[in-house]
Structure formats: structure tokens, C-alpha cells
């Protein structure tokens, strides 16, 4: 999907996105200006020695746990040693813990970007800064995005400032059917970005898959099956790989990765949109029963919602996709997410098919739109509580990490956001963020540009001296 849409839109006027990126435009990279809590010096220190986790108690909060329960006013959340230890209305503040009065504002877990490329891309059309795709590699499933992640990239800071604290990051594509292994990351202001490496394997079926596999859906499904069977043989007899020689269907690294897919260790995120394709993807478990499938996109999912629910397969949607952008999205509607949810499917809300690297902050806007749909006759949406959980605990569950991220239940990471308003309302912004219990900078290079040009015109010296 992304491939095609990008290909056709890259000249549409403005958005030269990833696919027309020209490598070689290796201009000097503008590094994000990180100013820590008030200046370059603080930033430098922060980078040299990341802030330690604080023990904090945020009181007087309109508290959202993120598990689908309703907000509760007058609540407290306590974070110690980087983890949530308690959150709720009757929680006492332990001695020796810094008390932060939220003043009645919304306090939530950080948003988990459900499907993204944050950290992999600085500027889409500047090839050297774009590690989304690897179209000329000889490897595929074995690719691991972890070393491509750049925690210093300005998209990390910009996404964080919009309330994103964790992200599921998937590779875009390789030269083969499987795109490689994604990671769960944090968006903290430090050099350690990876929360869980090799947290997922990504593959596209449908039109994108066909393009990789040789031109048809039949080729896609056969290639998928043959590669998994080859990996299974390899698992039983690793020496066989050498015997296959040049006829090997897989590189060793690819086989290793696929073995973990076959046995369910690594969730398999599958981009798929057409209803019939979804049904066929669900059937893959007949031959590979341990596959831990997660559907990505599922634009026509509502047409087969019962089948998806029965298979107990989670779905990540970009919920405002409502145009028949391709023939596999003819049934597109913004009511897809609500209908899936109503059928009992575990639905996460993400931001993809438009910008999956820079604008994860759209997730809250999209979720707010789902709430709006509940007021529209004939439409299906989500309640506020469901919609917010679709941004936090649902993606955590999809990637098998509900025990550690995505909510403010005890034991989860101390990713806490205080908002200036209802987080699903337009333009609401965090006023404070902790990741793993560490206070985060909310300043981005965009803010610095804004401040420099807050008053137009030059001063006594050019703008270049104004910082």
C-alpha cells in the first residue's frame, strides 16, 4: 500500500516521500537541537549522563489508566525505580517521593505508536537519512532494524512532544517478501532507544506482497509457505542450509528469524487490506498453527470481522482510511475500527498510510475522530475509554508486552504524561512527560525555530544570532 500510494503521490505536488528519495544527496545533516530543560549545556549533560529515574507521585490527576477504564478525578500515580507502583483514587503518596500536583489535569500513560517508522527516518526524501526500506539487500526476514534507529533524530523529539513515549517500529520492506524484524522502542531523550529488539516480523500480502513475490497473490502465498517450510527444515537440520548452496531459498539469518516466526516467538505483523486476503492470511495458521498473527491495515476488516474475532487476531488500523485508494480497499470506511471492536476484535489505532515517521501525534486526533463517529447515525466508533485504550494497552497487547508497557497498572514502565487538556481533543499537548520514570525534554527544534521567528523582521543582528 505505502509503495503504491507513495509512488503515485510523490509528485502530486508536495510530498516527495520515501519512494522518490534520491540517495547521494548527502547534505550536511541538521541535527536536532536538544535543549534539555533549558539550554544546550543541560542538553549536553543530559546526553552524557541520562537523567536517573525519579521517584515521583503525581497527585490531583484526572487519571486515565489506559486499560479501557474511565478517567478518575482526584487520582494519584506513583512511579518508583522507573516503574508504576500504584495508580488510582485512593493511592497514598509514600514518604520520600517527590510530589507533583497535576492541578486536576489529565494524566495518562504515554501513547504507544502502534505501527511506525519513528527513529528510522529523518527526512524521507534524503536517502542517507531514510532507513525505512532496504530494496537492494540480499537479506529479508533476518534484517533487524535496531542498529538503524537514531534516538537523536528530530522526529523522536517531535513525536515525544506530542505524547508518544513508546513505538512499535517495523521495517518498510526488503528485496524479498519478508521485510525484517521490527522493535519496540522508547522515545526517551537518551541514546538507548530499544525496549525490545526483534519484537516483530513484518510482511505485506495483497498488492504489495504480490509485487515482491513475483506478480500475483498465488506467488505470495506460495513463497511465504516455501520460505517457512525451508526455515522449518533448517531448524531441524541447520547443516542442510549449506547443502542447498546457491539454490537456498533463504539466507541463514533469514532462516533464523523465520524459525522464531513459525514457533510463535516473534509476532508476525501482516499488512493486508482486502477482505478475501484477510481470510486467507488467517488460514495460514492451519499449516503453521503457532503463528502469532497481527493484522496491519485491514481496511476491509469489517467485512470479515467475525472471522478475525474468532481467530483472536489483533488488528492495527489507521482508522480514518476511508477512500478506495486501491482495489483492495474498496470497502474502506472510518467505521471499520468501530465495527471490528463491536465484533470483539482487539483493535489498536495507529498512524500509517500517510506519515509513519514524523506524525505519530496524529494518533490522538484519529482516536478522537472515532469518538465523534459514535454520534453519527449509521456509523461505528469507539467510546472515549475504548479509543484511548486503543492507543496504549491495545498495541502493547498486540506485540505481547501488555505486562510491561501501555498502561499505568502496577509493574508497567513509568511512562506518564500530563496533558494541558483532553488528550484526544485537537491541539492538546503534554505539559510534562516521564519515560521510565525519567523527566523528558519537550522542546524540539521546531520550537526553537518558532521562537526565533516569533517576531518577524531582523533585529540589530541577523536572526542567526538569535537563540
Amino acid at each position, binding site marked *: 500500500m505505502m509503495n503504491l500510494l507513495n509512488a503515485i503521490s510523490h509528485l*502530486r505536488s508536495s510530498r*516527495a516521500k520515501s519512494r522518490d528519495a534520491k540517495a547521494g*544527496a548527502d547534505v550536511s545533516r541538521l541535527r536536532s537541537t536538544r535543549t534539555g530543560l533549558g539550554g544546550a549545556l543541560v542538553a549536553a549533560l543530559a546526553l552524557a549522563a541520562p537523567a536517573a529515574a525519579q521517584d515521583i507521585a503525581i497527585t490531583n490527576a484526572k487519571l486515565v489508566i489506559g486499560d479501557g477504564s474511565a478517567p478518575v478525578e482526584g487520582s494519584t500515580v506513583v512511579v518508583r525505580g522507573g516503574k508504576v507502583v500504584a495508580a488510582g483514587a485512593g493511592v497514598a503518596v509514600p514518604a520520600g517521593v517527590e510530589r507533583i500536583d497535576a492541578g486536576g489535569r489529565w494524566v495518562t500513560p504515554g501513547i504507544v505508536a502502534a505501527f511506525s517508522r519513528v527513529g528510522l527516518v529523518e527526512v*524521507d526524501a534524503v536517502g542517507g537519512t531514510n532507513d525505512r526500506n532496504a530494496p537492494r539487500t540480499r537479506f529479508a526476514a533476518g534484517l533487524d532494524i535496531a542498529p538503524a534507529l537514531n534516538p537523536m533524530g528530530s522526529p523522536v523529539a517531535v513525536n515525544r512532544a506530542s505524547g508518544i513515549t513508546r513505538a512499535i517500529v517495523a521495517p518498510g520492506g526488503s528485496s524479498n517478501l519478508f521485510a525484517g524484524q521490527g522493535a519496540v522502542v522508547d522515545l526517551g531523550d537518551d541514546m538507548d532507544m530499544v525496549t525490545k529488539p526483534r519484537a516483530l516480523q513484518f510482511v505485506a500480502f495483497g498488492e504489495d506482497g504480490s509485487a515482491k513475490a513475483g506478480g500475483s497473490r498465488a506467488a505470495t502465498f506460495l513463497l511465504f509457505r516455501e520460505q517457512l517450510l525451508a526455515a522449518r527444515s533448517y531448524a531441524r537440520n541447520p547443516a542442510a542450509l549449506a547443502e542447498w548452496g546457491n539454490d537456498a531459498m533463504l539466507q541463514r539469518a533469514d532462516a533464523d528469524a523465520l524459525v522464531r516466526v513459525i514457533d510463535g516467538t516473534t509476532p508476525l505483523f501482516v499488512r493486508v487490506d482486502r477482505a478475501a486476503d484477510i481470510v486467507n492470511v488467517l488460514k495460514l495458521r492451519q499449516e503453521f498453527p503457532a503463528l502469532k498473527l497481527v493484522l496491519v491495515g485491514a481496511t476491509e476488516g469489517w467485512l470479515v470481522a467475525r472471522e478475525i474475532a474468532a481467530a483472536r487476531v489483533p488488528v492495527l488500523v489507521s482508522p480514518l482510511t476511508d477512500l478506495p485508494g486501491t482495489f483492495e480497499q*474498496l470497502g474502506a470506511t472510518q467505521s471499520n475500527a468501530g465495527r471490528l471492536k463491536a465484533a470483539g476484535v482487539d483493535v489498536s489505532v495507529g498512524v500509517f498510510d500517510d506519515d509513519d515517521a514524523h506524525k505519530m501525534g496524529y494518533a490522538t486526533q484519529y482516536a478522537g475522530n472515532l469518538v465523534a463517529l459514535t454520534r453519527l447515525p449509521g456509523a461505528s466508533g469507539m467510546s472515549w475509554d475504548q479509543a484511548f485504550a486503543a492507543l496504549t494497552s491495545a498495541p502493547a497487547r498486540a506485540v505481547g508486552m501488555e505486562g510491561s508497557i501501555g498502561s499505568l497498572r502496577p509493574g508497567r514502565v513509568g511512562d506518564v504524561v500530563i496533558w494541558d487538556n483532553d488528550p484526544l481533543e485537537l491541539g492538546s499537548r503534554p505539559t510534562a512527560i516521564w519515560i521510565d520514570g525519567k523527566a523528558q525534554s519537550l522542546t524540539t527544534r521546531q520550537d526553537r525555530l518558532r521562537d526565533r521567528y516569533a517576531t518577524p523582521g531582523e533585529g540589530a543582528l541577523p536572526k542567526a544570532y538569535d537563540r
Partner: protein
Amino acid sequence: MIPGIKGSLLAAVSLALVGCAASDGKPQTASAQPAAEKSAKFNKDPYPSTYRPYAGRPTAVRGVTIFDGEGGRIDNGVVLFADGKVEAVGGGDTAIPAGYDVVDGSGKFVTPGIIDIHSHLGDYPSPGVEAHSDGNEATSPTTPEVWSEHSVWPQDPGFSRALANGGVTSLLVLPGSANLMGGRSVTLKNVPSRTVQGMKFPGAPYGLKMACGENPKRVYGGKGRAPSTRMGNFAVNRATWQKAAAYKKKMDEGKAVDRDLAMETLAGVLAGEILIHNHCYRADEMALVIDMSKEFGYKVSTFHHAVESYKIADLLAKEGICSAMWADWWGFKMEAYDSVNENVPLVHNAGACAIVHSDDANQIQRLNQEAAKALKAGRRMGINVSDEVAWTWLSHNPAKALGIGDRTGSLKAGKMADVVLWNGNPFSAYTRPEKVWIDGALMFDAMDPKRRPVSDFELGQPGEGDVK
């Protein structure tokens, strides 16, 4: 010019073409009239609008909060419209004449319909298959002779989404930005039609799409021809404008000219009849374009995308040039790297004309939401724009920039009844259009599935007539 044909033969050919294209359809002869008159006979409207307002009923919407589009606000107000025109906008005591349909909008909001000044609907329709890729005539860096209306597919399902989810009542469909001069744009009413002529906004001036920066130099540099640099962009533009100036001079002096469709568009720009819509991201490039426009005697109506307008907002205010902007798109290419979330309010605050645009079949469905994000970002830095003033970014300012501001874009007596009833404050994520009227005709009603247009393409497909 037609290669290989010279001298008198060329003149004869051109005159024959002139005759064919004469607006009154009568044969013209070369010697019968002065040349200047002949030139004027080039039909400036050969594909005329056939749009006529659909039938509406006299309607009163009462109990609503009204943003009039020009910055005014009335709480618990009444909007009256009939015969396609706004009749009155007033407070709760406004008399509702007998025989009017009354819509009780308590707790709801009424605004002028949103006008998107930057769309490619119809030219890059859904589905986005190669066969539908009709937005860039990327075979020459200057193609002022192409007209985007000749690419518009009226069956693009995107029009209906922009109406039902976006409250968009008019839009400008532009050629893409592969070319320095991409061709003419067309202003449409967002009504379903069998033909593009049935959508054309009657009497709207034409526009010319131009593009700065990365796209033209990448596309043509990649083909090994000019322009391959930003300086090449300007060189090709200036040479083309110089040619256009000579063409126009000939016309103005009453000399016979070989009709040249490209030059005709550019001469229309130099005569002030065709408005410039200039895709341009970087502040420094906008400043250069302004000088180029003065060098050749034209005016830029609007810089589109204008990601760095905030850096030169004072200059844009002084020059009277609008900026059509996104709320927060950034980072997809180098010239979009210096985006700030406060671009729209910073431009507005400097006294320049600010417009929120989409350039996208998805964002056109929620331009009100994009404006809301920009509005909130501005307020956070102390730029306190009211909701009702912010609505100028969505209707009045784009209408003025399109040259249709005297007919639509605000709720003033006598203007087109392009009206949206929102089921809440349109700057909230929880709000949707409930009814949309275009020229007083109810074209969308969220409460009535029969008032939900379904394009030919979607008829008989999964989800036909569904909420979208």
C-alpha cells in the same frame, strides 16, 4: 510554435485556428477586422460551466452558534437562505418568514462551507491506479498550456468524502508540482456531476500553478535536462516569462499572433486575469519569486505549502500575498524540514493572509481539525485568535485568494448559500458535519442516507452507500 512551418504558411495556419476557436462560432477572416479585435476573439471560456444550483427550499437554521466566515460570531443565531442565496444572518430574534423549513440547531454550529485552495481530487483520484494518474504533465518543465479540468474525473469518490466528512463546498483543483509551470487550475463547486463542466464554479477566474524548489529540478534534472538546480528553475521561468511578455506585447499592439495556448495562459497572468498559485516551501525562494513577479509584472495570489512563511510573514503581509499551509506536515523532504506548528497563526499574526489547505484526499476531509490544531498551537505561544476569526482561514481567505470572495466564503446576505451545520464546535475532534448546503441545496445530510452521494465507481461495490 509548430516546428517546421514558417512564414506566411504559419500565419495562415494560425489564422485558421483562430477562426475555429472564435467564441461566437462565426467564421473570421484575416482582413475583415483590426488584429487587436481578432486577438480578443480568442475564446477565453471554451469549456464553460454548466453548473446550475440544485433545487433548495427556503430554510431557516436557528438556535446555532454562527461563525460568519469574516470573523463575526453570533450565539443563538439564525441563518436564513432561499433561492440559493443567504438572505439574513442574525440573532435569535430574527424573524423567520412563513413557509421556511426550520432546522433547530441548538448546541450546534453553522459556518460557511470550507473552501480548499489546494486539491488534486479528480486529477489524482481514488483508486490511485496508474490509469488515473493525470495530475502532472511531466514531459516539459513549463506546461502552462495544460488545464487541470481536462484531467478531472468527476467520479472520484474523494469528492463525496470531502463533502460529507469535510464540509467542503468549493475547491481548487491544481496540476501537480513536477513542472515549474504546471498548467491552469480550476475552481469547482463540490457537487456530483457527470461532467467537470457541471462542477465548474461559474465565473471563477483561472489560476496558474507554479512550483518552486525540489520537485521541478529533481524531475528534469533526473532526465538530464534543465532545470536541475534552483538557479535553473529561475532561468527557465524567466526565459518563459520573457517570451510571454513579448507575446502579450504583440497582442496589446494589435498585431496578429499565432495562437499559442501556453503563451495565452501566461499573457492572462500578465494581464491580471489569471491568478498565480505558487507551490513554494522555503522563505528565501518565496522572496525570489516575489522579485521575479515584479520583474515581469505579475502578482502572486498565494504561496502554497509555504512551510517557511513564518520566516517572512512581514514581507508577505507587505506584498499582500496569501499563504496556504498545513497545520503540521513536515520532514517528508528537505524543503519541508523547517516546519513549525505555529506557521498559520504566525502568518495571521503578522497581518498576512493565512489559509489552511489540504493537498490531500484525506486531509481535505478535516481541514477544520487542521485549523484547530494550528489555532491551539498559536494560543499556546500567546497568539490569541478567536474561533470565529480562525474560520477566515477556511472560507473567506481562500475565497478571496481564488477571486470568488464576493460570491462565497462568508455568510453575508446575497452570497451563495454554501452552508455547513456542524453537530458541535467544528474545532473539536468530536464534531462532524450534519448538513451541507451548496447554493442553498441540501447536498449532504448525516441524518438521511439518501442525501449521501455515491459515485459511479462505488456503485455495486462493497460498502456502497455506507457511511465513509
